[in-house]
């Protein structure tokens, strides 16, 4: 595969590692958040919903700017980095992961929350009448019933992270193997008039996006058919 230079491979590997780690973290963080939002009502729920949804409408540069402040030497990120002797979380892979988690949160929380809401109260009530503690009911009833929401959320979170650009640029700069993701690489190639490489990457990502959308549709359809 020498038609793709090694720096492209590095960018591909980095991008998919970032997307994978981000998706796992998003599921861990997003599930309890989605559960809480699905099962409570009131002003605080509305406020939390709005905060989670903000990355949908905020320009990535704005979000990236605040993340840069937060992760940089003067923010809490800098303090955390100090624990292992570093000065900042910006311009690092870890910083990029944190940024991606924040940026893609609504894409994961929303489908999971919808799935929890679609389930209704009844299954949890039934589980309680069958002596299942709330924890056991959550693991054995709520999670399996919300499975389509998790699949959709994971696919969207992964794809969205693969495709992000503004946040990466604001937070990470352009360090090969650490913060130089595919979308940044495309930008670079265009800047330096390497049209062939830009074409390959752009085409590949377009195909990837198409497949992702197709996959979510297939998941949706499958679960709608097997629904009770």
């Amino acid at each position, binding site marked *: 595969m020498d038609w793709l230079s090694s720096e492209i491979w590095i960018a591909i590997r980095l991008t998919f590692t970032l997307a994978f780690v981000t998706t796992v973290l998003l599921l861990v963080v997003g599930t309890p958040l989605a559960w809480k939002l699905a099962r409570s009502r009131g002003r605080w729920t509305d406020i939390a919903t709005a905060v989670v949804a903000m990355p949908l409408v905020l320009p990535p540069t704005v979000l990236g700017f605040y993340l840069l402040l937060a992760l940089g030497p003067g923010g809490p990120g800098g303090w955390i980095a100090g624990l292992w002797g570093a000065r900042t979380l910006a311009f690092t892979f870890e910083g990029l992961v944190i940024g991606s988690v924040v940026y893609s949160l609504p894409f994961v929380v929303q489908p999971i929350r919808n799935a929890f809401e679609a389930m209704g109260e*009844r299954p949890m*009530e039934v589980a*309680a009448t*069958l002596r299942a503690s709330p924890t056991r009911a959550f693991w054995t009833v709520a999670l399996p019933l919300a499975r389509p929401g998790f699949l959709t959320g994971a696919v969207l979170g992964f794809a969205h992270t693969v495709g992000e650009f503004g946040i990466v640029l604001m937070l990470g700069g352009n360090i090969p193997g650490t913060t130089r993701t595919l979308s940044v690489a495309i930008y670079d190639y265009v800047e330096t008039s390497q049209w062939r490489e830009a074409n390959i990457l752009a085409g590949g990502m377009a195909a990837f996006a198409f497949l992702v959308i197709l996959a979510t549709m297939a998941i949706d359809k499958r679960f709608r058919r097997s629904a*009770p």
Partner: protein
Amino acid sequence: MSGAIDVAFRGRLGAFELDAAFIAPAHGVTGLFGPSGCGKTSVLRAIAGLTRLENGRCKVNGEIWQEGAAFTPTHKRAIGYVFQEPSLFPHLDVRANLTFGAGRGGGVSFDEAVELLGLAPLVDRAPHNLSGGERQRVAIGRALLSQPKLLLMDEPLAALDRAAKDDILPFLERLHDRLALPVVYVSHDMAEVERLADHLVLMEAGRVRATGPLAELQSDPALPLAAAREASVSLDATVESYDATYGLSTLVVDGVRFQVPTPPQKPGDRRRLRIAAGNVSLARTAAHDSTILNVLPARILSHAAGPYEVVAVLGLGAGARLLARVTRRSWDHLALAAGDEIYAQVKSVSLAR
């Protein structure tokens, strides 16, 4: 061993005011009966702990589930709950649904529940491949297998069509006959209550109007049951003999014999008779040249006159009660009054179960 179900719930649920208290025996089936929207389901949910009313008391067999600030969460109450819709877990097959809450303990075993509810052909299927009636039977089995000390049923037949209802009722009667499990059964359908309940809690607009043995409430002229068009009494009877020539059973209620055309019956079996008020007429003398088989000496205990008809409560034998509905003209013509010794002519008796 038979304690009591002692509950009192008061509070607001949305725009609805609930203030219901009753004590029912913790054995047999207690029907929670009343029109739609009178708070029956709210009471049942409060007994289960699914709804928490701040002013509540719930004691079952001496065990306190709610009193003052004490509140046992649903999953720590030894209840089985059958919802109006079967609510099976769609991601589990029938077997996994049945065993979801299955506990240890000396109650119903898996095989017993499967046999009792006729579930054998269903256990390896998925819930969405079952009919409504089959699903509800699985839901009942699932509730039984959680080894409850109290079974709560919220109109388990209301969402089913006539055929599915007729399919399940015999299973419910078998439960009643074979398990010593107290049941609170919510229904707005008197026909179901007549077949299943032993004890009745009559609800109206969030309050308990009356509570007592089924037959007693049915024959209380002060309650709306006796005045209803389809008023009837349910009498628990024992089969004395069966006459195969005419297909006629003799059943005894409190020392009074009824002859009822039925399929063959085993002497000693318990049956429930249903006698509608409209099928009982009154006579001063016993007619012996009539086609009516059951002509029984009775005493008029009380009566309530409506605009066109009079409903009389009759006492028979050692305490059984009947309702008779006659026209006001006949009532006046025969100059009937409470205390009179008369003959009740029972045109038709049916087996409620």
